[in-house]
């Protein structure tokens, strides 16, 4: 174990269109949650945004002061944290917890906030009379709906959902994902869905950014990235994903372990595990470049590898 500076997120660029769901995929430690927290300017103590821009509605969030961010959080962008559904205060009624967000942000009276909470419950598919229940009276899926209601409390334009369905049973998972898609449609909401589960992204997102060791390996339209992967990591990840469909055969796994971000590999961060690595990969860290109308990859050899694969 050592201390040092971990370059958790390096040169990450992507755009999110209105009413679109973008998936941020990657394994633990790849920087997806850090990216999300950076957007919200909610990095833990010790974390700093070194450079870059986060532009929402023509405003750069990186340049905002804390006070200005307070105004933006929840009203323009909100987030459903990972495991938040288990962090509800057990001794306060859920309706009040949702209303709390509204009261804080919009300075309305509590009765008004509760009224809006009831409407939010309906929006997320919960019976509005349940605003006066306590968290333990809800099942896992319903608690997650409460968290979504909370995130929608101040009518944001963007919602970030960090692993929203990982802890849920598979049939509940589908329903929550369907809810997100429905909200996306109804409210013209833009959603950033963060998860390590590639199959969830395949089925719900419009576009996807595959992250590895703090960088984006591949970015683009979901069909392109999945069906026509250019980056060796993407390709390996998608083909080596046990699935209930497709042919049953032994997969070749990616050798090695994800790198330590306090001392990342030289050159391309994926090179130690890449079957195609060579001298260039060991020295040159590739940039994200465009390879299609909505398809970007950061690999030194994208083109050459397509022919070899």
């Amino acid at each position, binding site marked *: *174990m050592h201390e040092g500076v971990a370059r958790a997120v390096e040169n990450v660029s992507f755009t999110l269109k209105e009413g679109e769901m973008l998936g941020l995929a990657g*394994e*633990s430690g790849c920087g997806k949650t850090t990216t999300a927290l950076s957007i919200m300017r909610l990095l833990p103590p010790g974390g700093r945004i070194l450079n870059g821009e986060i532009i929402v509605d023509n405003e750069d969030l990186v340049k905002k002061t804390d006070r200005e961010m307070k105004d933006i959080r929840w009203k323009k962008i909100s987030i459903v944290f990972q495991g938040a559904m288990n962090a509800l205060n057990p001794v306060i009624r859920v309706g009040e917890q949702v209303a709390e967000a509204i009261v804080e942000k919009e300075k309305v009276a509590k009765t008004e906030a509760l009224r809006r909470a009831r409407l939010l419950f309906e929006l997320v598919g919960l019976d509005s009379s349940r605003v006066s229940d306590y968290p333990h009276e809800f*099942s*896992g*899926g*319903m608690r997650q709906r409460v968290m979504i209601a909370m995130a929608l409390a101040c009518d944001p334009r963007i919602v970030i959902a960090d692993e929203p369905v990982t802890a849920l*049973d*598979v*049939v*509940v*998972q*589908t*329903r929550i994902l369907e809810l997100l898609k429905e909200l996306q449609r109804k409210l013209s909401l833009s959603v950033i869905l963060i998860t*390590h*589960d*590639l*199959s*969830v992204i*395949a*089925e719900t997102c419009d576009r996807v950014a595959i992250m590895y060791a703090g960088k984006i390996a591949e970015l683009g339209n*979901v*069909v392109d990235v*999945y*069906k026509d992967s250019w980056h060796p990591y993407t390709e*390996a*990840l*998608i083909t*080596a*994903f*046990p*699935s*209930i*469909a*497709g042919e*049953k055969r*032994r*997969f070749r*796994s*990616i*050798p090695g*372990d*994800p790198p330590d971000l306090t001392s990342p590999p030289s050159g391309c961060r994926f090179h130690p595990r890449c079957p195609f690595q060579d001298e260039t990969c060991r020295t040159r860290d590739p940039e994200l470049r465009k390879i299609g109308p909505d398809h970007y990859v950061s690999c030194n050899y994208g083109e050459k590898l397509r022919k070899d694969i």
Partner: protein
Amino acid sequence: MLSVENLSVWFPARSGVSGIFTRKEQWIRAVDSVSFDVRKGEVMCLAGESGSGKTTTARAILALTRAKSGSVKFVGKDILSLPKAELRKLRCKMQIIFQDPYESIDPRMSVLEILTEPLEVNKVTRSRRERERRVHKALEDVRLLPPLEFARRFPHELSGGQRQRVAIARGLVLQPELLVADEPVSMLDASIRVQILNLLLDLREEYDLTFLYITHDLAQARYIGNDIVIMYLGQMMERGSVEDVVAKPVHPYTRALISNVPVPDPTLKRDRIAVKGETPSALDMPSGCRFHPRCPHATEVCKTKEPEFLQVNGDRYSACHFNDRWVA
């Protein structure tokens, strides 16, 4: 190799304050009459969601949890009725790999200590040299190379995948015949999962091991399993070979489960079978068929009468009053 018959694990539940005073006992029927056979060298999957009782079943088979009734025959002996001393001797032959690689190995012990502990406890080796040889072999088997380097490390110096390999090595060091794996890859990253799954398959081939693999992920079950038992609220819903059950499920629960499992292919259009509600708590066990409150095809008889676990064809069994309707 392993024959489980009518295994039931019930936990006593005392409801509220009155429970302390009255002797009336309510039972949580965590596992109810589960039966299956596992052939030597095969991988049997116990699949189910949270609350299905799959983990409890596995624990009961290894006698880590007390079973209420039933029998578990392993190498000709009924584990559940063995005296303590004999049971401990039998433990060498059946080992378990836990789900959490961060918690299942003692953080204060070095890898070498973790791997020699089973050998010392069971006194199976006579000399230190032999112990070291076995540890060395186990580390090689799980591909933690060079073994010397890894033997001296501590858990916090290892990655999740490496820790899980240590846990597997610990399971191997006693040279068992049966390995129970409780969601061994659920807490690992996607790129490591296949590594570990492949490792398990390799080990099975090399040592002719028999596996009892517990998971909630049907994709994993399909990748590694030969046979599968689908569990819900403590009971078996369906049983058969993995390929068959996944391709042509019979029981409504299995059908719903499979239709809802996402697949990493954005172009595949699926028909999702909607299931209402969530798994109820074991204290509030539904009457009749346990799945009836959520089943899209429930009828009157489903509410009152518990379906039998019947043969559908070949080695396929399903517990639904309307099995015939679903057979393709």
